[in-house]
C-alpha cells in the first residue's frame, strides 16, 4: 500500500480526529492531531496499516508550547503524528498500552522536557543521574549549562 492509498484511507477513516494530513515526501506522511485523539489515531494506524513500529518520540520546544512527534512506520511508509501540548501544563497520554516499546522514549521525554506522561507504567528517571536537581529539564531551549565553580576541599 503506497503513500496516496494510505493518505486517502486516513482522510476517510480519521476525518474528525485528524487536524491536518499531508504526504510530505515519498514514503512520508505527516499528521496533526489533538491531544484527546492521539490514542485513537495510533490505534487506528496500528490496526489498519500494521504501524506497530515506533522509531522514536521527538520533543520540540516551540516556546509557548511543546510539540511531540510520534514516528511510526510499517514496511512501506513512515507516519509522523504531531501533537501540541502547552508549556504551562505539558501533559501527554502514555501510548505504552498500544506500543510497549514506547516506555523508554516516554521516560526520556519526562527527563529531558519535564513532560508529564499520564498513565506511564514506569515513571522513574531514565537518563539523568540520581542527584540531578528537580525541575531542571536540559533539552528545553531556555536551559543553559553553567559549570559550577570548582571547590577544592581544604584548598586556598
Amino acid at each position, binding site marked *: 500500500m503506497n503513500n496516496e492509498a494510505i493518505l486517502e484511507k486516513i482522510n476517510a477513516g480519521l476525518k474528525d480526529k485528524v487536524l491536518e494530513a499531508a504526504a510530505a*515526501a515519498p*514514503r512520508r506522511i505527516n499528521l496533526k492531531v489533538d491531544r484527546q485523539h492521539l490514542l485513537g489515531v495510533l490505534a487506528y494506524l496500528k490496526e489498519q496499516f500494521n504501524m*506497530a*513500529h*515506533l*522509531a522514536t518520540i521527538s520533543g520540540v520546544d516551540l516556546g509557548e508550547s511543546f510539540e511531540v512527534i510520534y514516528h511510526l*512506520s510499517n*514496511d*512501506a511508509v*513512515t507516519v509522523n503524528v504531531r501533537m501540541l501540548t502547552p508549556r504551562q501544563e505539558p501533559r501527554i497520554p502514555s501510548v505504552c498500552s498500544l*506500543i*510497549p*516499546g*514506547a516506555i523508554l522514549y516516554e521516560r526520556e521525554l519526562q527527563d*529531558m522536557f519535564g513532560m508529564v506522561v499520564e498513565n506511564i507504567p514506569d515513571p522513574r*528517571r*531514565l*537518563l*539523568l*543521574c540520581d542527584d540531578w536537581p528537580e525541575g531542571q529539564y*536540559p*533539552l528545553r*531551549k531556555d*536551559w543553559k*549549562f553553567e559549570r559550577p565553580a570548582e571547590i577544592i576541599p581544604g584548598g586556598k
Partner: protein
Amino acid sequence: MEYKVSLGPQHPALHEAVSLRMTLEGEVIRDADLKLGYSHRGIEKLAEERSFIQNIYLTERICGICSHSHTTCFTQGVEQLMELVPARRGLFIRTLIAELERVHSHLLWLGVAGQEAGFESFFMYTWRDREVVLDILEWISGNRVHYAMNIFGGVRRDIDELQKKKILDSLDLLRKRTDYYLNLAASEPTFIGRLAGVGKLSKEQAIALCAVGPTLRASGVPMDVRKDDPYASKATT
C-alpha cells in the same frame, strides 16, 4: 527460588556503563531492570549551539562503531531542509561507506558473540578480518573509525582506479571468510549448544518492543530499512 543479582554499572564484562538488576530463578534470568545514562554526553544540547558544518563532526562522534550512519542521517536531514540534491557519484560513495561500515560492525558483534559464548578463537578470527574492512576505509578516507566522508551535497573524497582494485581484491577475501564463518556458526555443535534458545525474543515481543535490524530479523520479521525505506544511492537504483 527467586533472587536478584546486580551487574554494573562498572563491570569487566560490560562494553559500556549500564546497570542491570536481574531477577534469577536458578541459572535462568527471568527479568532485568536496566538503568541507562551513565555515559550520556548531552550531544543534543551541544548540537543546539553549533553550526550545521560543526554538527557533522559532532554527530560522527555519537558512536565509534556506526559513526557514518549518524552523519548520513544528519546530512540527509540538512540536505532536505536546504533543498539540496546531492551529486549522484557522491550518493554511491556514501552508500559504499555505509555498507563497509555495516560489514565491519557485523564482524565486530559476531566476534563479541563468540567471545561471550566462550569461543575465543572465533573472536580473534572475525576481528582479524574486520581489519581488512578498516584498511579499505582507511584507503578511502584516511581514517579507520571516524571517516569524515559526509558533507552537504555529497562526500569529501573520491575513489580512484587503484583504490577500486584494492577494494575489490579485499572484498573477495572477505566473501570467502564470511562463507567460512556462516558454515562454522551453523555447524559447530559446541557453539550451537551454547547459543540455541538462549535469550530468545519471540516475534511478537520483538515487534511490541520496537526492535530493529539484525535483532528483529533474528526473531523472524523480514524487515530491512535498506529495502523498506531506501536511502542514498539505494533510492536511485
